[in-house]
């Protein structure tokens, strides 16, 4: 029995690179989305809700539920399950409505 998803599909990925989540270093594989890279590091939440301040992360995994919205390189409301990870990406926990630049 294969022990990891990468074993199962015989993955030989291109060299990994680093991104950060709230300043913490996270290793990503080229071709992974931000959400996949975070899951790979055991991180399941990168947003807090507007009313309850509750943690959220990827739920539907296909861009439909918008629960995985993250602030990426300062830009809020990016769907982490769709956006590919790039070397040096800085993901920060998105709090509340995420409209930091509008101050609404």
């Amino acid at each position, binding site marked *: *029995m*294969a*022990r*990891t*998803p*990468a*074993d*199962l*599909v*015989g*993955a*030989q*990925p*291109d060299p990994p690179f680093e991104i950060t989540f709230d300043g913490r270093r996270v290793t990503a*594989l*080229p*071709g*992974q989305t931000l*959400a*996949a*890279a975070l*899951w*790979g590091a055991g991180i*399941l*939440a990168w947003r807090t*809700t*507007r*009313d*309850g301040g*509750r*943690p*959220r*992360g*990827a*739920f*539907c*995994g*296909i*861009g*439909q*539920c*918008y*629960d995985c*919205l993250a602030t*990426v*390189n300062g*830009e809020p*409301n*990016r*769907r982490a*399950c*769709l*956006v*590919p990870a*790039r070397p040096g990406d800085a993901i920060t926990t998105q709090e509340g*409505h995420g*409209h930091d*630049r*509008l101050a*609404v």
Partner: protein
Amino acid sequence: MTASPSEPEPSAPEPSAPEPSAPEPSAPEARREPYDLAVVGAGSAGLAAAVTASELGLAVALLDASAQTGGQFHRHPAPTLGARRPEALHHDWSAFTDLRRRLAGSSVTHLAGHHVWSTVREDDGSWTAHAVTGADGTAGRPARIRARTLLLATGAYERQLPLPGWTLPGVVGAGGAQAMLKSGLVLPGRRVVVAGSGPLLLAVASSLAAAGARVPAVVEAAGYLRYVRSPLALLANPAKAAEALSHGTALLRHRVRVRLRSAVTEVHGTDRVEAVTVTRLDADWRPVPGTGRRIACDALAVGHGLVPQIELATALGCATRRLPDGTLGLALDDLQETSERGLWAAGETGGVGGAELARTEGELAAHAVAARLLGRRADGDRIAGLRRRRDRLRAFAEVMSAAHAPGPGWQDWLTDDTDVCRCEEVTAGRIREAVTELGARDARTAKLLTRAGMGWCQGRMCGTAVSCLAAHGGAPEPPAERRPFAVPVRLSALAALDGEPDDPHPRAP
């Protein structure tokens, strides 16, 4: 402005970060427009339709939100992940690679990274598809594609029924867990309970187990007896039984226990999943008191079947039909045409039925489009054969849909403080109050009173639940699946509509 009235998108400034690894939106090729056919969705149905239509001599544009073809069923790792055996996570992988090879050898214009937010019929009867571009639709340049005919192959999304604790990190959609595994080669946890209803659960559980997760239980709310009540549809579709058997064998090999007529009725944990309670259900999906058992796990993959994604069609006024599982699909004629002339649909949009049915309908629709445009009759042995296969697989799909229709008793596992609408954090208690105290009798009124369904996802996650709660014990109306904006659209993209139709660089707002 966006699809979500409560979440206005910043209209300016435009995002400055470049996206080198995002799919590069192709500029509409003015010389080829209007295309004979624009296909929205590059999953099984859309791929089959696009390559068939192209091979029949039509100029075809194939639009899809993803960077790669395959849709959700054949979602697969990016080339840079170097998967030498992607088929290990797939059923019927060669059917996809055959289509992919035909696409590569065709003249189809594949527009990856195109999120279609609206389709409109022009005065001359042709169609325009409006799309935002990039991995998540936030790239600078919107696109519009013109075509003489349009085919919607937009697939489905997962149906969710809320339960106490389902907003905890570690609770993910069953299809979501599958998608993240298939494309990103990652798991949501080490011990993953798979729960809900529908044949997808068996596929998800066997994939997770093969990829190294422990799966303490697969929890299916329905029994499988409903299938046996339709022996003809089963006998006519031996491949479907074989597929179920292969998942069942894989589960046995991984010692995964399947619990029928049971549901996860509560998720435990503070900041992430620590355990779930599994409770037996009666025939109406009502939890049987005293039967709850706690199972330790660090993730829950949950889903209750699939919902046809049809908002582009409903915005055009297409007729729908109510499916046996309480969802809405498009009403289609014998050659896959919707009630709007010149607009076809294939695959899950007409009712969820799987990849083989989707490919069959896509190919059939392509023949019908070609016949219309070339002024021929849509007949012949090939079309007759496709129709027979479509009818046979459709019959099975209807049996499957009926077998997994949620029973009315599921609402009994909701506590008043369970979040129903994940986006707007609206609890079951507030929706019940809107119904019992304020007189809401339908999902729309409940939404106006509570904001349930008014957030980013526009009711995709909570629509079924709000409809059931609003029906207050009566027969729920299927969620309307009407979303004038199929995806969120920035003001800048709307402002760019003033540009010339074929202008690849519309004026900045």
